[in-house]
């Protein structure tokens, strides 16, 4: 029933867009524009060019909405248009960095090595020296926490940022993200792992209440 309702809603929304409903269009812009700019930023050299790419993508959405068949989600269709525009622009700029090789090499531990006991204590080597503390219930999902997450994501290297934005912020699945970014499943998982690890680490000092975990 829910799925049918959702489908009905999607159809109504699409019909409104096609009929030229400006409120429907603006709600689409508010929902996707910021993510589109952030995703585009990974493909091109500057914020200003990313904004231009997103404008181009919106033109594609406006002119293509009649022929959108609704077999995929609107979000997916919009992001496909966006990444196509971004790739084309990136190639023109010769800044087309293949995500497949971006930030996957090298060592980037999820947790700083000094947080673990070293080989001088053979029995416990690799165990926590400085264990994670329990996070305060009152801080979970607080505005401050969400702001920290947002800022931590902005600071990530391009490849990691693209993947966490599309997977965890936008909720696409790994096949969809692989197709959009041209990433193998394994490399995508490495980038996602590093991104989530870094964002968690950025939250740690705020979230720990100072109380010992029980």
């Amino acid at each position, binding site marked *: 029933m829910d799925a049918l309702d959702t489908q009905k809603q999607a159809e109504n929304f699409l019909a409104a867009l096609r009929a*030229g409903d*400006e409120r429907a*269009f*603006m709600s689409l*812009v*508010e*929902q996707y*524009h*910021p*993510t589109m700019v952030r995703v585009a930023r990974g493909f091109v050299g500057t914020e200003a060019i990313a*904004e231009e790419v997103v*404008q181009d993508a*919106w*033109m594609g959405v*406006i*002119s293509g909405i009649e022929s959108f068949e609704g077999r995929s989600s609107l979000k997916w269709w919009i992001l496909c248009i966006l990444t196509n525009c971004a790739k084309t622009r990136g190639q023109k700029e010769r800044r087309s960095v293949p995500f497949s090789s971006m930030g996957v090499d090298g060592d980037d*531990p*999820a*947790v700083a*090595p000094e947080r*673990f006991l070293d080989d001088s204590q053979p029995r416990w*080597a*690799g*165990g*926590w020296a400085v*264990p*994670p*503390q*329990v*996070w305060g219930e009152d801080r*979970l*999902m607080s505005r401050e*926490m*969400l702001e920290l*997450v*947002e800022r931590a*994501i902005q600071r990530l290297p391009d490849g990691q940022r693209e993947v*966490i934005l599309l997977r*965890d*912020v936008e*909720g696409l699945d*790994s096949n969809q993200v692989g197709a959009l970014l041209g990433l193998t499943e394994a490399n995508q*998982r490495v980038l*996602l*792992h590093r991104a*989530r*690890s870094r*964002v*968690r680490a950025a*939250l*740690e000092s705020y*979230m720990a209440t100072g109380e010992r*975990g*029980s």
Partner: protein
Amino acid sequence: MTTVFREYLTCKELVELVTDYLEDRLSAEQRLKFDQHLNWCPPCRHYLEQIQATIHAAGRLTEHNVPDAAKETLLEAFRHFKSQQR
């Protein structure tokens, strides 16, 4: 990522397998080691919970602000296109 031949995972190894665990990409054997480790290691349970909270928080980043200038331009483009269609 570290290949583990021992019968158990260390905490340092576990944190590197968290994404594979959540994405269901561990072998049955690795998954068992992971679950067994969690059973006796509260700090690693906290760690996993923190990663899950991080993912959940990322999914809540819905407060989006679009600059007014960009909104105006797009609305203008939308109107223009629609008016030409008629």
